[in-house]
């Protein structure tokens, strides 16, 4: 009896000596990934330091939950921050700067544009855990059936459009591409022309470069190379692609998991987005998520150690090998995983390289804290022109007026 009591007291003492670090991210498929990562890599590293990680995945609207929790003082020590709303969150002062916990060398091990994405007013507020860019994914069977050569990385907007039109003409019930009225896809083409979302004064100007990309993109439906996604009963290009309603999709590596479930036998290949025929450059978005530290955390030192373990080379290698996400460390570019002859490895390689010089003009998916309000006028202009309700002139004039009101240009 005495021995049991002694053991129990020792266990209690050990538990009390342990530092607990709470971490949170969104739920869904991520839950299995993070749980696996914690169990197989992270917790083992932390056991020696007596740190216990408690993982709380959030189902439902993560952003709402996090903003509420941070405001109420109940947020975990470490949490995901999406680049789309990072700036608004960092501006609140509820996220701790990480400069004190990470040396310059440690930070330099990550891809610079990702680090830049989580740098706000000269201070680093998040370590990128993984990222995505856009790639062009094509259905090999449909291209073979239509006897059209596969898209490749030398394709320009015009040559790709020619291929899409041929597929759509020859296969009748298949669209070349299913087009979405969304800046999250169209923006990459606007960037290719050299256009930037904001000028030096913080204003958005829909100039001639933007207009050229806009006319090409919205005209794809009229010229018989694409169909509007909503007309095919889909909300994203991956949905059309998985259902073989379209021969090409423009998505990131997240499409791999969807295709694994929806169409496991689909033969697909991946290449880069096409080049602007005038600038001979392409454009792309970086969609990325960081691990960030709660400014009100009582265990900042321990949390920073957990953060390091979660983004360590071993942790990122573990994630990469399972084909779950594209890790954010520079050194992984040379990883043998990317050279494997599988469709998913090819997709991940192209998405990884999309953030480098090969991606062309690459910008983070972030709009100076204006978020969805900034994208809305452009999305509506895209929809109005694609569905033939407005001329390009009228749609762009209205979008410009709305953006001027938003950014205070007039």
């Amino acid at each position, binding site marked *: 009896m005495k021995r049991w009591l002694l053991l129990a007291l020792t266990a209690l003492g050990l538990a009390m000596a342990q530092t607990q670090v709470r971490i949170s991210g969104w739920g869904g498929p991520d839950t299995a990934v993070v749980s696996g990562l914690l169990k197989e890599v992270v917790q083992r590293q932390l056991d020696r330091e007596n740190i216990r990680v408690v993982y709380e995945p959030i189902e439902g609207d993560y952003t709402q939950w996090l*903003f509420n929790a941070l405001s109420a003082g109940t947020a975990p020590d470490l949490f995901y921050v999406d680049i789309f709303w990072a700036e608004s969150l960092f501006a609140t002062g509820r996220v701790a700067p990480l400069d004190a916990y990470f040396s310059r060398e440690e930070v330099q091990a990550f891809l610079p544009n990702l680090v830049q994405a989580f740098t706000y007013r000269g201070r680093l507020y998040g370590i990128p855990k993984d990222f995505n860019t856009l790639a062009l994914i094509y259905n090999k069977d449909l291209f073979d059936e239509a006897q059209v050569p596969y898209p490749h990385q030398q394709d320009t907007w015009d040559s790709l459009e020619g291929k899409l039109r041929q597929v759509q003409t020859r296969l009748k019930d298949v669209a070349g591409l299913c087009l979405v*009225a969304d800046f999250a896809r169209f923006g990459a083409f606007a960037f290719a022309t050299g256009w930037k979302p904001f000028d030096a004064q913080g204003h958005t100007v829909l100039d001639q470069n933007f207009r050229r990309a806009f006319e090409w993109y919205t005209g794809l439906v009229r010229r018989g190379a694409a169909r509007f996604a*909503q007309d095919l*009963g889909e*909300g994203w290009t991956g949905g059309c692609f998985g259902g073989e309603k379209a021969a090409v999709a423009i998505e990131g590596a997240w499409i791999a998991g969807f295709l694994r479930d929806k169409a496991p036998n689909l033969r697909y290949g991946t290449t880069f987005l096409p080049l602007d025929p005038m600038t001979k450059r392409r454009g792309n978005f970086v969609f990325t998520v960081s691990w960030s530290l709660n400014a009100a955390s009582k265990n900042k030192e321990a949390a920073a150690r957990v953060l390091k373990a979660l983004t360590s080379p071993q942790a990122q290698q573990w994630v990469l090998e399972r084909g779950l996400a594209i890790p954010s460390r520079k050194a992984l570019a040379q990883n043998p995983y990317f050279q494997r002859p599988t469709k998913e490895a090819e997709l991940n390689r192209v998405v990884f390289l999309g953030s480098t010089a090969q991606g062309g003009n690459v910008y983070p998916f*972030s709009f100076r804290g204006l978020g*969805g309000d900034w994208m809305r006028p452009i999305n509506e202009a895209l929809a109005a022109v694609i*569905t033939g*309700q407005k001329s390009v002139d009228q749609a762009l004039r209205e979008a410009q007026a709305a953006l001027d009101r938003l950014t205070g240009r007039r």
Partner: protein
Amino acid sequence: MRLKASSLEALYALLLLLPFLFTLGVFFLYAFLRAMVFSFTDYNLFDPPRWVGLANYLRLVQDPLFLTALKHSLAYSLIVTTLQTLLALLLALALNRPLRGVTFFRTLYYLPSVVSTAAASLLLLWLFQRTGVVNQGLSFLLGSLPFLALGFVLFALVQGLGVAWWRRRGRALPLLDPGLAWVSLALALLGVYVLVQVGWVRPWEVRVDIPWLTTRTTFLGLPYPLWAIILMNTYTTIPTFMVILLAGLKGIPKTLYEAAALDGASPWVVLTRITLPLLRPVLFLVVTLGLIGTLQLFDQVLFVGGAGGAPLESTITLAYYVYGNVFPPGASPRVGLASAAALVLAGLTLAVVLLQRRFGVGERGWS
């Protein structure tokens, strides 16, 4: 000291009401007061609230999106409440008759109300796509107009000739004699079939291609996507109100109808002098619930705007405006502004319900 019986009763009542009073106090009264205070500040969830007076309310009045949301909420509420009350009443009256299999029909007509708003919205998206059932149905209808017109002309011709022929033989047939009408219809259909086979009539090539959801085009001042939501919501809320009205109809004493029948009252007189006056308390409930429910329209706006791709200006309502400002995608919360809008919505709901109570259907049955 012994408590009086009445005090003891009051104490018990208070004890039993306590859980309800607690939730009412915390989740309504406290929340309401907090929202009221926040509506006069620039609160963003993080920084301490700073008093800004009436600035949020002034900003609301100047925000075109808020004015659109206000207009949509009011119009939507008025149209849907009217439509759903009238149609639910008609349906309840029909299902209150002693018909064979009426229980089956009561179940059947109740079914739409058990569909969740998410599923109903998905259905709405399918129906109103550019290649959806609505556009295809309209295309078919317009394409078949030559057949319909020809059929109508042939029917009128045959019926006219038939009536004339019988009248000449001394039988005073009415113009739309049912027996003859069946024969005329059959002959008209045969005529259309023959003319189609010969190739004299062809269907029109009509392709209705209206983008119902991804548009800001308006009809009678309201955007198409909002009309689609109006149709869908009316369809899914009618059954619930039909059941309530049916319960009300069951409560009307049968003796009144028997007396009316003895006096030889027409169905219209029975409806307007007996049924409707005695149904007033239930109608009051239905209209009030309808107004409150419709003013808080939110889910469909989210679905039709998200998956349906409808522009925000075409579907936004006050409830969505409040939500959109508390959690703007990618931007900082604007809790002060949202609180002001929420209070406007609450005030509006109260005003509309009071107005309807004063000028609309009263709750007293025999007044």
